[in-house]
Each structure stands twice: as structure tokens, then as C-alpha cells.
């Protein structure tokens, strides 16, 4: 399978929702240590809304699946809500055509650009951007090397995890974690980890099994 099909997109997003449900407490704990401790709650409520949107949707397309998660996050509030909302929306926009590695790479690039513009965060500021940028870069490199979508996504996941891991050493310059100075040191940014978990959820068995 070269590209992400409609069914696969839906599976991918459902799998992501499942993983987040399992790890909500852990992500919240990161936000508690370097933020305000509501991250898991915000995320779970976005994903509850995603499931509702998916269930309500009649159209069976990758675009519909990404639109469901984008709108769910846009209806969530907080900081992560609108940022993930606009990020997912770029994937939804791209999904009018087949989601090949190249299309995914383009989408990831325009998605991180809009997040950076709205949130004014750059790599090193200890935010979701620290995972989004390397993921986009990895997708681009995989696409250019001729990899198929599952392989490109696996590379993106690895790059995003590495980016997220790297946030642990950083002092935050954006978001609430920036208020707590050294208390944020040693704490992985939950937004960055979430980005990595999203690409993780596109495991070959999810995409292919679909």
C-alpha cells in the first residue's frame, strides 16, 4: 500500500484516540509539572468529539476523517486545541487527493507553518513545534528518497519522538511552561509527545490491516 486510504486514515485516527486515552494521565502529569495540568483533559475532550464526528460522518474519505479531528480540536479551546485544529486541517485539505508520502510531506510542512505563525513558537521553544518540524523534515526526506506512505510516516514518528525527547532538556520560551523556569527542565513537552504519538499511530499494521 503506497498511500493512506480512507479506511486507513480512519483507523489511524481511531488508534491515535485510543493511545491518547491510555496515556492521558501521563501527558497531564507532564503539563502538571510544567504547565497547568489540564492537557490530558483538553486532549481527551477533543478526542471524544473526534469520535462523535467520525461516527456522525456519512462520507467515507480520508478528508472526512481528518476534518473530523480538525474540527474536534478547533472546538476544544485551550492552547493545544486551536493549534492542533489548524494543524490537522492542513492534512484534511491535502486529503482531497491520495495521501502519498509526497502529499503528506507537503501537508506537514504547511501545517507546521501555520502553527508557527499563530503560536509564534520556533524549534527549541519547548512546544509541539519541536516535534512537528522534525516530523515534516523526515516526511520530506522519505518522500524524496522514494519511500511509500507507511515508511515515511514511520520515519516521521521516529523524528518526532526524538524531537519530543529533546524538549526535556530545554527551558520553555512559549506556553505556560515558560512561566516556571527551571521547573520545566527535565520535563518532556506533552504537546510534542502527542505529535509523535500521532505519527506512531500510523503503524503499518494499522494502515495495512485496514
Amino acid at each position, binding site marked *: 500500500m503506497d498511500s493512506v486510504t480512507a479506511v486507513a486514515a480512519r483507523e489511524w485516527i481511531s488508534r491515535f484516540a485510543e493511545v491518547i486515552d491510555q496515556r492521558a494521565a501521563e501527558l*497531564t502529569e507532564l503539563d*502538571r509539572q*510544567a*504547565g*497547568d*495540568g*489540564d492537557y490530558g*483533559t*483538553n486532549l481527551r*475532550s477533543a478526542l471524544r468529539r473526534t469520535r462523535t464526528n467520525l461516527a456522525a460522518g456519512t462520507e467515507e474519505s480520508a478528508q472526512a476523517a481528518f476534518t473530523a479531528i480538525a474540527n474536534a480540536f*478547533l*472546538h*476544544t*479551546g*485551550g*492552547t*493545544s*486545541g*486551536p*493549534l492542533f485544529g489548524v494543524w490537522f486541517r492542513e492534512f484534511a485539505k491535502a486529503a482531497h487527493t491520495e495521501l502519498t508520502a509526497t502529499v503528506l510531506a507537503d501537508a506537514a510542512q504547511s501545517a507546521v507553518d501555520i502553527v508557527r505563525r*499563530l*503560536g509564534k513558537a520556533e524549534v527549541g521553544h519547548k512546544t509541539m513545534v519541536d516535534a512537528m518540524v522534525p516530523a515534516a523534515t523526515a516526511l520530506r526526506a522519505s518522500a524524496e528518497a522514494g519511500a511509500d506512505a507507511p515508511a515515511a510516516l514511520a520515519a516521521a514518528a521516529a523524528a518526532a519522538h526524538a524531537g519530543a525527547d529533546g524538549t526535556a532538556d530545554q527551558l520553555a*520560551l*512559549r*506556553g*505556560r511552561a*515558560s*512561566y*516556571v*523556569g527551571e*521547573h520545566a527542565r527535565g520535563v518532556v513537552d506533552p504537546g510534542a509527545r502527542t505529535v509523535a504519538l500521532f505519527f506512531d499511530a500510523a503503524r503499518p499494521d494499522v494502515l495495512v490491516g485496514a
Partner: protein
Amino acid sequence: MPVRQLRNDPDEFVAEALRGLQGAHPELVHCQPDPAYVLRAQPARRAKVALVSGGGSGHEPLHTGFVGAGMLDAAVPGAVFASPTAFQIAAAIRASDRGHGVLLIVKNYTGDVLNFSIAAELVADEGIEVGTVLVDDDLATEPAAEGGPGRRGTAAVVAVEKICGAAAERGATLAELVALGRRVVDSARTMALALAACTQPGQDRPSFDLPADEVEFGVGIHGEHGVGRRPFALARELVPQLAEPVVRALGLASGASVLAIVNGLGATHALELSVVHQELSDYLNGLGVEVARSLVGPYVTALDMRGCSVTLLRADAELIELWDAPVRTPALTW
């Protein structure tokens, strides 16, 4: 012992509280359930610039308790400690616009700034004129050289809402209100400390732990760590530690006059807030600074955090007059 709340499902906490607020004050506020926002039960008698504020919940009475004559036209509550969505905010703006434009009063947090600016873009497309006052009074987050999100918005927002609310009621234009609001923000700074952290609904422990002999200095209103720990001490030692940086930042000298807000962060008893006010007055009087007006109570809370914030606002005749103007809301009436 895990901290418990009187509530049902944490996800329904805010929605149910809005129903309760409306039930307790049906003559003052009307709570819209979905998208959630709070309007005045009776719109202002004459068309005027509308004031809309909002932000995460958990800070009550802010902002929902300040909807009413002389203050806000609408408040938009997010989930606990989470900004409302741009859709909610846009709906509240639409519902309160009377054709004279809408003043958005936004506390400086990434989420609030994001969602209010997305909302402003949405309604601007529909021809609604909006102006924004960004409130960033919290000295603990005075930006360092390397940049960052800037000072947080805390208790000075009450003064912005009250003073701009009074001016709007008298027919000030949107441009005038933006200028007035910014002047209030420029004249106000805040510093806070906590004796104990707060606990988020559904969590089983406070957002941080404090040793018995220390206070968390420079906290915000979301349970996050402050900028440092200081020894726990008597009020007469702690209060000047809060007031001194505020006095310095505002350049207050003998002969100055201020409006003082002694704000309880949630679980601080009225007796304690009165003692803090007394110590603050003594300290300021010692510097020759006059306390022209005071507001003492839990106005901008951080759930059940123990502690207080001290806000000073450099006062002049115009600001005092607007502060004194009548107000009639669930949480502030005179």
C-alpha cells in the same frame, strides 16, 4: 488525602455551574449553553460598545460574575484552565454587538490570545468592529531579555472590566475604550504568593507540593509553580514582599494615590484577606502612598489555591470616578 469537589462529571463541571449561576441570578445574567457564553439578562438600555471577556474557568467570579450593568456585556468561559474556543468567543461577540463595536478584554495567555484573535478575524469578516485590550499585569512573569510570552494577565483585569465598563455605559467609543483599557493596564501591576497549590477537577493531588516552612512566590492563577520559594513568615513580612516590586515597577513615590486589589486565590479566608489589606495599607502609608480605593476578596481565583495577590493601580481622578460609577453584576455591585 485526595482533594474532592462538590460536582458531578468533571467534563460537565463548567456547564452545570453556568446553569447554577443563572438560577442564582436570573435577573442579572443569561447563560447560553452551547456554544457556552453568558450575557446580561437585560441588554444595556442604550446601544453602546459591548464589552466581551473570557478565558478558562476556575477563576470565578471572573469573568462570568462580572456580567451586568456597568461592567461586561458577555463573558465566555472555557473548560477549567483552558481558553474558550474561537467559535464560542465569536458567538458571544455576535450576540452582544449593538452596532457600536465590541471591546475584547483578553488576559495574556497563549490560548486566550490565540482564540480571541481567531474569533476577532471571524467576526471582522462579518463586518463587526472589534478592539482588543491585552491585560498583562503579573510582575512575576516580567519578560527576561530572551523573550517569551510576556507578563500573564491576572487581577488587574477586574479593574479593566470595571473601568472600561463604566466608560462604555457613558457612551465612550471603541477607540476611546481601547485607549482607556491600555492606560489601566499600563498603570497596574500584580504580585502573588501561594501557601498551598490548587487541585484540578478529577486529579488526586495539588499541582505542586510545598514544604511546611516555605511559600511559593510569584504564582499565577493556574496552579503553576511560582518564580521561587521564600520562607513562610508573618503577614507583616510577606505583604511588603508582594507590594515592594509592584511599587517599584509602577514608580510609586510619596504623594501617589492607588487603587489596591487584595485578591484571594480561592481558599483564603476573609479574615486573612483583611489582615493582608491592613498590612498593605500600613506599608503604602509608610511610603506616603495613599490608598484611594480598595477591593478585597476572592475575585480572580485559582480553584482552591491558598494565597493572595496584590494589585496596585496608579489612580487619578478620571479612573477613580469610573471605578466609583454604579455596577450591578453577580459578584460586584455598588
